[in-house]
């Protein structure tokens, strides 16, 4: 399979009054053509910052202090604003949690789509682009597309607004769609419809999807591969089935045991003791060490992400040692 994006040793820091937040601290991964890759982890672990850094959308007090983001052989982090804006909205697009914030209340649903289309195709007029908008609405199953393009955001439900945002995201046949918690604000039955839609996009538009979520159910339903983040780092990376079947990092195991499964009666949930570390004073060595039931002195040194079995990476001394034996 072809790699379309390669993130190498990405580092993003925020320089705050209280100290430096190492929000993303040496993150590497790749996205293959046509896949859905999930980034999962608890609040504050750096998922959104990673997503935004991919197209260099980090504002002060944040700064990308290291790493490379290779897209079609070029390093996005080396590009200037003009070059970046020809990528954003065209080849790499975003869908965020709150669709209301993404839509301008003064413009119709169709105009939002038409505008992105014209912005990236020279000489196309808005009339033509509006016709394209109707087409896209039709493709992504917005009912009554001819009239819907004329609706203003406030006339649409939350689920419908998110469909409009997705329509703008796919309008230019992007290579990569980055969806940051796209269904968190929606009701479950609507959430399921949006997830189905996102799954279909890769077939219809040939796009890969990076899906950011804290919901392991969404991961299981949607994703081909998963990255588990903890405190600014990747702790595990694997194919979805494999991660659920054979989680290797104690944090991943903890997360999987903590989620109540509707299809299984559980007598007692296992919970991970303690809380996520303060990102200014992260624990020395393995960041999960203070909460880890298996921590030893070895964990005072930071483990590397190693391939424990084929395509299954983990950063934990437990696995490294087992591997050596």
């Amino acid at each position, binding site marked *: 399979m072809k790699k379309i994006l390669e993130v190498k040793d990405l580092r993003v820091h925020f320089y705050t009054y209280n100290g430096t937040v190492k929000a993303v601290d040496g993150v590497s991964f790749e996205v293959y053509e046509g896949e859905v890759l999930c980034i999962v982890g608890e609040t504050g672990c750096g998922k959104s910052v990673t997503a935004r850094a991919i197209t260099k959308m980090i504002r002060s007090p944040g700064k990308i202090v290291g790493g490379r983001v290779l897209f079609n052989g070029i390093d996005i982090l080396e590009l200037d604003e003009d070059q970046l804006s020809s990528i954003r909205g065209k080849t790499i697009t975003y869908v965020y949690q709150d669709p209301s914030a993404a839509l301008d209340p003064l413009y119709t649903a169709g105009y939002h789509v038409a505008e992105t289309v014209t912005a990236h195709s020279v000489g196309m007029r808005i009339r033509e682009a509006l016709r394209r908008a109707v087409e896209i609405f039709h493709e992504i199953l917005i009912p009554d597309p001819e009239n819907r393009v004329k609706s203003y955001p406030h006339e649409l439900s939350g689920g419908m607004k998110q469909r409009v945002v997705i329509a703008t995201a796919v309008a230019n046949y992007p290579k990569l769609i980055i969806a940051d918690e796209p269904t968190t604000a929606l009701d479950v*039955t609507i959430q399921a419809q949006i997830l189905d839609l996102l799954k279909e996009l890769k077939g219809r538009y040939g796009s890969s999807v990076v899906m950011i979520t804290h919901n392991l*159910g969404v991961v*299981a339903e949607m994703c081909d591969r998963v990255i588990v983040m903890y405190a600014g780092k990747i702790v595990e990376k694997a194919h979805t089935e494999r991660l*659920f079947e054979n989680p290797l990092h104690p944090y991943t195991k903890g997360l*999987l045991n903590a989620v109540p499964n509707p299809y299984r009666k559980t007598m*007692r*949930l296992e*919970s991970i003791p303690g809380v996520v570390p303060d990102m200014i004073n992260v624990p020395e060595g393995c960041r999960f060490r203070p909460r880890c039931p298996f921590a030893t002195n070895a964990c005072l040194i930071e483990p590397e992400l190693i391939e424990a079995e084929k395509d299954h990476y983990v950063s934990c001394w437990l696995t490294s040692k087992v591997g050596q034996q």
Partner: protein
Amino acid sequence: MNETILIVRNLRKYFPVKGIFFTKGYIKAVDGVTFTVLRGSTLALVGESGSGKSTVGRLILRLIEPDDGEILFNGMNVRKLKNTDLLEFRRRTAIVFQDPYSSLNPRMTVYNILKEPLEAHNIDVGDVEEYIVSLLERVGLGKEHLYRFPHEFSGGQRQRISIARVLALKPELIVLDEPTSSLDVSVQAQILNLLKDLQESDKLTYLFITHDLGVVRYIASMVAVMYLGKIVEIADTDSIFSDSRHPYTRMLLSSIPVPDPKVARAREKAKLTGEPPSPLNPPPGCRFHPRCPYAMDICRKEEPPVVEIEKRHIVCCHLYVRR
């Protein structure tokens, strides 16, 4: 053991929607809700946003007044309670909200937050500090947290403080309105386990409002599914998951993302269509009919009757009426 603590019959609450000059209409937030809760059990109230779950919770605690219906708590008619009886009812019931950030006064120390309900109800617990420390210990906190302020705690710890405050008055019935929805899964698991332990040791009864069906499976004994102000199905938790009858319950069940790729990819899914209509003008007949794949003529005209499928399993749907 099977002692009834709460009976709710035909509860109704309409909120007026005001136009410029006159009332434009009513949101039928809760429209004829009936259920029973056994002491020491957990009834989960599930349904989509706006279906009326929180309104039911607030009505039965008399935080808002119903327009119609009956609420019996330990045999007492809650709507008629006055003065000391009402105060006593307030002591024996409690509510925990979703957002642990806004439900604690930021300017009060934990000690004062926990002392407040004792003073409001004039309760003599002997040594107040000792009692408060014992409350904190029950929710997994300790003496060292007494004189700290809410902002010094994590979300999960704040929810523990809210729970400690509720426990202070030794209530019998607690309404939990999405108590873990704003928490991370690892913290949610801690709080759910705590709630389970407290229920066991104190014989607490919970009305648990949530839209997370995984949480329901873990904590509930019975489940009531709401749709646009009405309960469409009530049953034992296991029956809801293995033998649900209402088309909406089935749609809800196939919508939840299951944290297990094998199950998620193998299971059969009910067809998902449409969105919940506005509660201002709910559809006539069965409120679910515009989204229902099995809708018949009668569903568009007549409200569905209550059908008892078996003991303790009730569904409101024309499909199950024997003709």
